């Protein structure tokens, strides 16, 4: 084992892992974090805490992670390279580890242009792949980026994101290979709606043997309504929402759409449990955390293993 990460242990046990996420509040309310975490705590092996998601200021992911850690749960702190340079990131990683966090996700982050601080200077000192390498060097070499030794290095289990649906498709596996070469341990994918295309991507991943080197958690998002599906299809960059998803939601009464969305997500997880190379699921129930238990149970992934 490289780390003390519960996620690493679950994956090492050969069982499918489940993670989900909590977006910290846009204020200092600790209870919001606790409430959201309590909704999902028994159904996941790790809880992502987003880092100024969509480039909007929120409580810091490490502070949110600390609250979750104090609840006896397992935070996965997200870190974007948009807001910090190498100095700040390394110091935050030391701090996070000192506070008990041992699993993190390395991201470049949505451009500030998206959020409510478009006037902020984007940092992007390093990219997500450089960040993976940096965290790995800290853990395995005990080195800072500047070359100095770290006394008591942070042992982080290193995650990253992958979007099998972004363009150009032929690069998506190659870019994953770069993340693997940089030292990533696990991947949480973008929300999957086009399951066929995901399976095509996964097959290429398996053909290259990348699934042996990195644990891929398939990104699952239940659709709350037809409106949400249409919005995501037309407005959210990098989303691939096939017509069959839209049609299926359109085929049921408005008040039944949420239920149908949950059903679809469960079916999708059941299908992907059989997909070679898929080592678990990352459930992104956007403002719908209370549905996570139903999804996990429905997919036959409850109870979570004790490791």
């Amino acid at each position, binding site marked *: 084992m490289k780390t003390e990460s519960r996620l690493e242990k679950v994956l090492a046990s050969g069982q499918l892992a489940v993670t989900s996420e909590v977006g910290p509040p846009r204020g200092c309310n600790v209870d919001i974090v606790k409430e959201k975490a309590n909704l999902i705590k028994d159904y996941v092996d790790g809880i992502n805490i987003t880092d100024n998601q969509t480039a909007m200021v929120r409580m810091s992911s490490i502070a949110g992670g600390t609250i979750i850690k104090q609840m006896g749960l397992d935070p996965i702190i997200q870190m974007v390279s948009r807001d910090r340079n190498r100095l700040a990131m390394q110091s935050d990683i030391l701090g996070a580890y000192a506070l008990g966090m041992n699993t993190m996700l390395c991201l*470049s982050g*949505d*451009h500030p242009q*998206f959020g409510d601080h478009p006037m902020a200077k984007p940092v*992007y000192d390093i990219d997500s*792949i*450089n960040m993976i390498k940096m965290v790995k060097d800290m853990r395995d070499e005990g080195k800072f980026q500047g070359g100095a030794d770290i006394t008591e290095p942070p042992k982080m289990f290193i995650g990253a994101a992958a979007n099998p649906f972004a363009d150009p498709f032929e690069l998506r596996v*190659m870019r994953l*290979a*770069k993340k693997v070469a940089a030292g990533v341990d696990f991947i949480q994918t973008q929300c999957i709606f086009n399951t066929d295309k995901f399976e095509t991507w996964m097959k290429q991943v398996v053909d290259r043997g990348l699934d042996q080197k990195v644990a891929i958690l398939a990104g699952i998002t239940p659709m709350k309504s037809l409106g949400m599906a249409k919005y995501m299809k037309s407005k959210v960059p990098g989303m691939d929402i096939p017509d069959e998803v839209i049609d299926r939601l359109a085929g049921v009464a408005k008040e039944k759409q949420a239920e149908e969305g949950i059903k679809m997500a469960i079916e999708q997880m059941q299908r992907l449990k059989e997909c070679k190379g898929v080592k678990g699921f990352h459930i992104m129930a956007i403002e719908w955390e209370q549905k996570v238990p139903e999804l996990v149970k429905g997919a036959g992934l409850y109870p979570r293993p004790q490791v």
Partner: protein
Amino acid sequence: MITAEQKPLQEIFGYIAPYEKILVVGCNECVTVCAAGGRKEVGLLSSALRLHSVKAGKKLEVLEHTLERQCDPEYVDQLKELAGQVDAIVSLACGCGIQTVAAQYAIPVFPGVNTKFMGASESQGIWAERCMGCGDCMLGVTGGICPVARCSKSLMNGPCGGNSSGKCEISEDVDCAWQLIWNRLVELGIQDRYEELVAAKDWRPAGGGGPRKIIREDLAASKIITEDMA
């Protein structure tokens, strides 16, 4: 070249409000090519300043001059006589030119343009950023397309998940630089290179090491000798 755009007239009016006689100075280099601060623009701005003062019932005399180059003290020396006649100067050169003028004359010097970026002309009237002067050119490994200047996140190992049909997540009007790089690598038949990890960039040559300076010993030395001889 260095691109620039004329500042809003209201801002310039504000700068020169206290003065009765000013000099508008253009530059015959980059800002002429991007139609922001050449002889023509000096004429137009001066004319506008005059029309404005007439409308406002204010006394204002505007002199016009365009230097061959505003970022060289030798050329800026040529303003000596004109500068002696005015209360203030409005410079339409890039920030380098404005500062060279300001360093040489003890009267207020105001910018008449906003200096934008190092860019190339895409077609008439359209200039786009191409270089950020990072001081350690990596075009040799990126197929001649710069990810520092042209990727919104300056990713060393792009593209990110925000590439949609070759366009950047920030705007449909912005090409994804990494898509362009990939296309180019394919065109050159060297797509294998894509998978080489590009290390985190050292930003010192890009300005992270403080204000940058080039000292060419051979040239700088010969100048000293000439000065000594003189």
